[in-house]
């Protein structure tokens, strides 16, 4: 649930930058990290060979996020190509390394799709703290982060370090993804970051409202999903994201109904030319 709240806070900026798939790209790279962590755990002869899976994921997620950030700011590759390289490279390397390392398939599956039941109390507390920090930063610096992501050109012309801020956003995305890995899994983590934002933007007229509502949707869907997992034997990640997508469909449907009704006279949509002229 903490992740459900924090994910959209970062996701909103990613959508604003038109790189909503960054989360998935980082997720795939993190898979390589899980494999590396497991291999390291085995090599070091740790009692629990999966102990290093999460630190490994965190490490490669950060490295991957920074590489994509650098590739984009140099302007050599289009954003979507940079992401594609991450997706395929990360997933492939993860699979190969996992086979080499001989890790057990449960670890792999847990990383891919999440397993809420296996999370220890210590991990849960660490996740909550990490999520709280991300939320505090995302909202605390919302003005300057909005300026840097909405119009980087203008931000830089005002002396705002737009480049550095977007790098920090990529780092925050990597942190959120690693935090969310155990709850929703790497395949679906992007969904938790982006789908709530997509729901919120259906009916919000400003960026801050979108972000606030997206976090509430994310937290709500995650809470409901987690509660249902306790009763049914279904993986939490899938349940949460399916819930979010269904919510999106419902809100979109309700919206199209109501806006059709609003086309009636007096609808305060676009101003007419006459109104504009008199305003000018």
């Amino acid at each position, binding site marked *: 649930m903490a992740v459900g709240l924090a994910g959209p806070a970062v996701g*909103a900026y990613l*959508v*604003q*930058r*038109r790189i*909503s798939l960054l989360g998935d790209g980082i997720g795939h790279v993190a898979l390589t990290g899980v494999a590396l962590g497991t291999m390291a755990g085995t090599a070091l002869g740790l009692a629990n060979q999966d102990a290093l899976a999460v630190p490994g994921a965190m490490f490669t997620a950060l490295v991957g996020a920074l590489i994509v950030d650098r590739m984009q700011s140099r302007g050599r590759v289009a954003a979507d190509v940079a992401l594609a390289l991450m997706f395929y490279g990360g997933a492939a390397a993860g699979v190969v390394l996992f086979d080499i390392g001989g890790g057990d398939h449960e670890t792999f599956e847990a990383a891919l799709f999440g397993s809420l039941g296996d999370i220890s109390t210590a991990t849960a507390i660490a996740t909550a703290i990490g999520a709280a920090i991300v939320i505090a930063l995302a909202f605390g*610096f919302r*003005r*300057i982060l*909005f*300026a840097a*992501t*909405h*119009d980087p*050109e*203008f*931000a*830089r*012309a*005002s*002396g*705002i*370090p737009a480049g550095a801020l977007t790098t920090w956003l990529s780092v925050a995305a990597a942190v959120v993804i690693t935090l969310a890995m155990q709850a929703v899994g790497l395949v679906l983590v992007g969904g938790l970051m982006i789908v709530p*934002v997509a729901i919120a*933007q259906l009916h*919000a*007229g*400003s*960026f*801050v409202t*979108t972000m606030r509502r997206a976090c509430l949707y994310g937290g709500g869907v995650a809470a409901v999903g987690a509660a249902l997992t306790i009763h049914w034997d279904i993986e939490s990640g899938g349940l949460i994201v399916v819930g979010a997508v269904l919510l999106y469909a419902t809100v979109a449907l309700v919206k199209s109904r109501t806006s059709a009704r609003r086309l009636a006279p007096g609808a305060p*949509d*676009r*101003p007419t030319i006459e109104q*504009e*002229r008199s*305003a*000018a």
Partner: protein
Amino acid sequence: MTSTVLAAAGVTVGFGATIAVRDVSIDVHPHQTVAIFGANGSGKSTLVRAMLGLVPIQSGTISLFDTPVPSRHAPLERVGYVPQRTTAQGGLAASAGEVVEAGLLSRTTRNLPVGGKDKARAALEAMGLADRYDFPVGALSGGQQQRVLIARALVRDPDILVMDEPLAGVDADHQVVVADVVRAAHDRGAAVVLVLHEAGPLAPLLERAVVLDRGCVTHDGAPPAAVGAHAMPGHDHVHPHADHAPEPSDLQRGVL
């Protein structure tokens, strides 16, 4: 007292093997309204962006209020920049108020200053958008979006206003609104730099014109003689024309 607001000396800008701006020197003085003319691809936008530190320069120097650009101490908060409208597109809805309030931020001001919302409202009101504060920018018409971006540049009371193609995609009525804004900024004592394809209703306000052709300055001095609507019969000629104006035919070729 500063003698120049914005100065470029021997500036060359290139992208890979292409040179976009070649050995250009311009000084913009306080309280001066300068237009940079040129055909598409003549380097006028690149020059202005380089002068604000947005594009790296290959050689030459740029100074803003006698501080080198780009540098950590360049007083960019004294600049009101209106980029070409196409650059201001985010993936999410943003309200007009939010966009204008972003104009109050700078390297040192990371959060909205006290009274910022009132300032933003006033700036929108000055652009005839008083009732659009909570309105998503994406739902506004093109001309209104342009005015939101102008409000964002004006909200900080800039000492120099830099506008890149402020008339592009703006209908005739709203071009007059843009001209009013430029006049008001000038009257307040600000320097104004305009990147223009054609002057339109801004023509009477121009004190100086720089013409770029393939990255080189081909003219720097009196603005071109009135063309277009300005030259039509019935136009009120209240401003003096410079006596030493160059041949209008030359300029028009450079301008159009």
